């Protein structure tokens, strides 16, 4: 193994792990945009809420003296709880009125501002509920043991994260193309008006898609929580990162979001090895570069297919 290849492999594995989280959040954002045409600025807050809830779940499991392995189902349950509790309320209560605005520019702007207002509210809600101090649940990371690849140790949890992201990608694909509900979602994403004329309850599909998107963001946060310090501010950082992923892929693209998340994840990790100072520029620089040459993203070839 050459001097370069070792760190490169290591960077790639770390990058794929990072990309996996990024994918989960970004694909939720993309789903919401694809179906509702709303760029959800509050999406990062769903991620943060998922992370905080999961961190609390860890504390609770420790306090109750339950077996530590309970944390894994608890991560998923946290995500579901957050998504189901917040998604429908936000979509029905706070966003639905914007769908009636006829002029496209005015509607988009109202949605950007409304979701930003929701972001602000949720940011403070986090502070009120969880206080200002960071939460660490890192021991959940080591429960599954360690795998050595070329002598470098990786937690199996990292590999599990990648597996979950792949499963979500496959599940989304199957659900969208293979179930009645999925086909309704595809139809609404493409043409809400004709969908309603075919008997599809468009408003309900909006709520479903928004909630699933919120669950995915919360799942990203819950699964990332053992690997990060859960702190206020993680939401505002994640929203711009997932914007970058979605913009690179093309708004509404699902498989594309996976590719873009991988590119950003691996690019970021490689940069950490070689130019650590510039690593955090990678996502935004990639986004700029892509948008200069492909204004609608890498995979948004035709306007017709959005999911």
């Amino acid at each position: 193994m050459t001097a370069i290849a070792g760190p490169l492999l290591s960077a790639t594995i770390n990058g794929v792990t990072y990309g996996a989280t990024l994918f989960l959040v970004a694909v939720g954002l993309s789903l919401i945009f694809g179906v509702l045409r709303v760029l959800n600025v509050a999406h990062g807050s769903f991620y943060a809420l998922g992370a905080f809830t999961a961190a609390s779940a860890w504390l609770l499991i420790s306090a109750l003296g339950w077996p530590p392995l309970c944390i894994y189902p608890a991560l998923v349950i946290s995500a579901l709880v957050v998504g189901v509790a917040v998604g429908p309320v936000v979509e029905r209560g706070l966003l639905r009125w914007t769908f009636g605005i006829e002029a496209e520019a005015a509607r988009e702007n109202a949605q950007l501002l409304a979701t930003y207002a929701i972001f602000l509210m949720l940011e403070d809600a986090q502070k009120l509920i969880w206080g200002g101090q960071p939460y660490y649940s890192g021991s959940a990371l080591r429960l599954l043991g360690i795998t050595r690849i070329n002598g470098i140790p990786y937690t199996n949890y990292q590999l599990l994260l990648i597996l979950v992201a792949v499963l979500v990608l496959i599940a989304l694909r199957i659900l969208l193309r293979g179930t009645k509900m999925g086909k309704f979602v595809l139809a609404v994403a493409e043409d809400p008006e004709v969908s309603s004329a075919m008997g599809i309850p468009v408003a309900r599909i909006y709520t479903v898609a928004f909630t699933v998107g919120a669950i995915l963001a919360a799942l990203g946060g819950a699964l990332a929580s053992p690997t990060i310090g859960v702190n206020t501010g993680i939401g505002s950082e994640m929203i711009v990162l997932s914007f970058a992923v979605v913009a690179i892929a093309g708004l509404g693209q699902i498989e594309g979001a996976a590719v873009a998340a991988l590119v950003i994840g691996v690019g970021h990790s490689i940069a950490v090895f070689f130019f650590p100072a510039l690593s955090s520029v990678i996502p935004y620089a990639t986004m700029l570069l892509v948008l200069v040459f492909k204004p609608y993203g890498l995979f948004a070839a035709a306007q017709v297919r959005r999911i």
Partner: protein
Amino acid sequence: MTAGAAALDVDGLSVYLGGATVVRGISLRVDRGATVGLLGRNGAGKTTTLRAVMGLVPVCAGRVTLLGEEVEGEPAHWRARRGVGYAPEDRRMISALTVEDNLWLPANACGLPHQAAAQRLAWIFEILPELEPLRKRWAASLSGGQQKIVALGRALMAGQELLLLDEPFQGLAPALARRYAEALSQLRERDRQVAILISESNPALLADVAQKTYTIERGEIVTAT
């Protein structure tokens, strides 16, 4: 459903859209089993009338009665479930799905039992046999004319009581237009209950299929023959 009621009864319908009153006080009636034409030039208000009946645009005055029940403020998907099928002029296939999936969408959305839906589909394939070989194709890969036929099939799926066909002959090659008209008359022979409202700008094309024609000009009905 009220016995003996018309499939569609529109009374004094007005629609205000994009800063203008596009439809002004239109009244028309489509009896069960009847084929009625709505004739008018581009911009006369035909499409808006059909869309208002379907519930796709808000109505500012007047009543729409479907099968004897007033449907004011009812969203489009409820009207579809009452048995109203709509084929828009620009076809609007769901291009991310196959032809078969497109045809199944209204059946699933309106909650038709699987058995009934499969029978309905088989029946549609009898009237529109050219659809059968296209089943597995992506809707986006079809020609415009083929998409028109799929759109008719899709409208038939939900439209067991009333079909709203918006300029079905528009943009069809003459041979295809003839085939479309033939399919409509076949539909008539097999199903004497379904009512059809067709909008069209060419009176010659309506003459063969419609028993009654309303002419619309600048949002108002000027003649009914």
